């Protein structure tokens, strides 16, 4: 092993200065400690950082960034490492800035309906804290029990309630952030209306750690819905399920959640959660509505009717909140449960306008067959955000090449249907070659110019979002 890799390759004086900021305990650079921050939840991608630093104040972050900027040391900001686009893999080495110590809920403001938190607060803990006050923070990404709010904002995470309530950026009102220069800035705040200058708050949502480090966030809250009901509908054909989604929306009902699971996904989820799902069915819709009691009752009844009219073989309304919660928890476990089938599980998040959902599902099936790869699909049917999940084995290079081709074709299909290559996971490393296809070369140039303004020395999460080469590798096949 190279000596510098064993030690980490930060120069001794840089290391001394960084330790002076946070102390020995929160500066980690032993081989094992660096190795465990060489990955996130994205399969295959891995790269060693030179040090892991765990700041706990904004002043510390500012000092660290200043030193890193001065010495051109790459900085990859990270929460719990649940990223699915290799966004927190420290590709270029350097420092992993672990923000988990920023874990305070600073204030719940009942008059302004806002919550101010530090970025390391775990999403589910935030839910619990505000719900105890009868308030509601809707974004609920699949990994919410582990993921941090800072990570959610950096990636603009979505979740199962996106259809009715939108995504993380729709709740982001204000930020404190630190530039690579060490300068501490604020954007937005508690004002519902605020048009003073460019909207820096929104710009940082989904910026994937490539612009600045967020050190505090103010988020919008809603009153906690009075009631919720969950139901499941099972179908012998995918088309029937897709039509149910379209007709429910056309009937002017916006459910909080409309999740879709195909047969393969149902089977593994059932094996994990032992729910007794009818696994002989081709597809399942998991629907939740929330709101005032009578409205919820009325909507769920109407949705059940529509589901039956559209050919649902079985419709089941959860009898207790626990039963409903179990169904949703099982859906959250879908990704990990799928990994039981093959050693490597690659999850994507191609998204199309809701009306093109059935076409997209059919495209995915066709593409899987064409490249002879196993793809299970589940996802947020209500907002067109699908999760085609490929089950493979990273050790089989030949198969992996086919998987790559299949995903490329899926991305192109999504774009052709007016969709996006990423609904909620972000671009990171995994999809950076495809970004130009969606935003165009002009779009890339503008984004790079914005990055340049924030981070002239390219130390913030380098290698993410933008491909290194000037020309993308992908050739569009007609």
């Amino acid at each position, binding site marked *: 092993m190279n000596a510098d*890799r064993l030690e980490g390759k930060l120069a001794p004086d840089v290391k001394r200065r960084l330790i002076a900021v946070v102390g020995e305990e929160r500066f980690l650079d032993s081989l*094992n400690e660096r190795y*465990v921050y060489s*990955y996130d*939840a994205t399969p295959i991608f891995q*790269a060693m950082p030179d040090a892991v630093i765990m700041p706990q104040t904004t002043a510390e972050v500012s000092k660290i960034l200043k030193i890193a900027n001065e010495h051109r040391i790459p900085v990859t900001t990270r929460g*719990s490492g*649940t990223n699915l686009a290799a966004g927190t893999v420290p590709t270029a080495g350097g420092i992993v800035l672990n923000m988990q110590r920023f874990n305070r809920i600073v204030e719940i403001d009942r008059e302004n309906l806002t919550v101010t938190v530090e970025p390391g607060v775990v999403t589910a803990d935030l839910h619990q804290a505000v719900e105890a006050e009868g308030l509601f923070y809707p974004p609920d990404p699949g*990994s919410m029990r582990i993921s941090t709010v800072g990570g959610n904002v950096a990636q603009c995470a979505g979740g199962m309630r996106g259809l009715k309530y939108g995504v993380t950026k729709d709740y982001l009102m204000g930020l404190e952030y630190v530039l690579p220069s060490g300068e501490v800035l604020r954007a937005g705040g508690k004002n519902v209306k605020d048009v003073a200058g460019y909207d820096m708050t929104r710009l940082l949502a989904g910026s994937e750690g490539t612009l600045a480090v967020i050190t505090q966030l103010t988020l919008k809250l809603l009153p906690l819905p009075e009631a919720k009901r969950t139901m499941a509908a099972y179908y012998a054909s995918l088309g029937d399920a897709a039509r149910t989604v379209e007709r429910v929306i056309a009937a002017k009902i916006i459910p909080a959640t409309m999740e879709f699971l195909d047969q393969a996904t149902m089977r593994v989820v059932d094996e994990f959660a032992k729910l007794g799902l009818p696994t002989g069915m081709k597809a399942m819709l998991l629907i939740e509505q929330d709101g005032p009691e009578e409205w919820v009752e009325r909507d769920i009844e109407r949705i059940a009717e529509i589901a039956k009219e559209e050919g649902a073989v079985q419709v089941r309304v959860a009898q207790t909140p626990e039963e409903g919660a179990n169904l949703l928890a099982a859906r959250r476990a879908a990704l990990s449960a799928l990994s039981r089938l093959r050693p490597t599980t690659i999850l994507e998040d191609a998204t199309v306008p809701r009306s093109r959902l059935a076409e997209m599902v059919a495209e995915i099936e066709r593409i899987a067959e064409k490249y002879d790869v196993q793809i299970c699909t589940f996802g947020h049917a209500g907002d067109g955000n699908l999760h085609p999940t490929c089950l493979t084995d990273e050790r089989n290079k030949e198969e*992996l090449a086919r998987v790559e081709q299949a995903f490329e074709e899926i991305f192109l299909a999504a774009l052709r249907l007016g969709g996006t290559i990423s609904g909620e996971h972000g671009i990171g490393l995994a999809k950076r070659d495809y970004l130009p296809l969606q935003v165009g070369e002009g779009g890339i140039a503008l984004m790079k110019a914005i990055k340049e303004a924030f981070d002239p020395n390219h130390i913030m999460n380098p290698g993410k979002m933008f491909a290194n080469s000037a020309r993308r590798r992908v050739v569009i096949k007609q």
Partner: protein
Amino acid sequence: MNQTDKACDLAIGQDEVTPVTAGKFNLDEIMNCMQCGFCLPACPTYRQTGLESHSPRGRIALMKGVAQAQLPADAEFAKNMYACLGCRACETACPAGVSYGSLLETAREVVEDQNKKTAKHSLLRRLVFEHVFPHPNRMKALGMVLWAVQALGLQRLATRTGWARVLPRALAEMQQAVELVASPFIRGKRQQRMRAEGESLYTVGYFTGCVMDVLFFETNQATARLLAKAGCEVVFVGGQTCCGALHAHAGEKAWAVELAKRNIEAFEQSQVDFIVNSAGGCGAALKEYPHWFEDDPSWQKRAEAFAAKVRDASELLAALPPLSFTKELSARVTYQDSCHLAHGQGVRGQPRQLLNLIPGVEVVELEQADQCCGSAGIYNITHFDQSMEILDAKMEAVKKTGAHFIATSNPGCLLQMRQGIIRAGLTGKMEAVHLMELLDRAL
């Protein structure tokens, strides 16, 4: 996905790491972990430290690194593998079904193999694992010495005078939790067979366990009485020995396998319907014997037949016609899950169900009852401070229940809970008991 990005591979040269250990790991099992992180909030050491290296996901990544010869199985790796409690709460949380417990055993075996090569093995370790636990007679002798120390009042004297301080701090504090053990006279009175009350439904072979039978002889007797009362003919099968769990958890796989063979042979000859025990840790190991023989098909078959008969006492008692009690306990009781009973064996409902049968008992659920108490085999000795931190947090939850009794299903947990009661200043207000003993008191 981008092929070229695999260049962002680890920049660790593979040539200079000696790949001595790669072979032992089951890479397929490691690959089942897809790094989703669902295990993180379930892990006591991760919650305590916030460090990825102290999480199941991190430890599995390190194992993968060693298995693929990207990392050496060095002292740091060893430290990280032993910082784990082995409570296996992560297995319950894992949607991908990763067998973390068996991966951890392999990792520690890899560490110990390395240590043996470099003569880092301590004499004490060899003494304990090779010359004490595997020998029922020596364990019995140890029990006699312990009884003598207690009978002569030496233990109390040592605590009072401070002589106990000559012991390492962890032992000095933990020894207070050891209550009076059974005298040689009482031990000698154990009958090889206990007849079923009424019609005999099953013949069960009783697995006594080594530490369990030394420190908690009376609990074993109580369990046997309960089984007999419920219609079982109970046989204390001869030739049985330590289950090997402590060896397996400590990376001494060869010894663990040896012990497993002796137990399998002993119980094969006894021809019982079930093999029953009342120690969650032992039970989990007994049920996992087939995994220990993955490279030995003929023994694996015998291990499967053996494991199929293994039941925790609460599992069997809950399945038999309900016990009839004669006494009322009029007390509030809470239950601390044994990790290896709950996460390892998936037995959660039955102990609670049995407690609810006791007349006069109000069962209060303990907040996060299935989180490790910090005992974790010998973790409370090897990692005393961390263990006590976990225990103190546990006791905060225990206090909230206002229970008179805290029931457990494993000797290690029982000792730890007794220690917790002392540390929390609840002595005299609360008692830690084995579930079986509490049931027996109401018979």
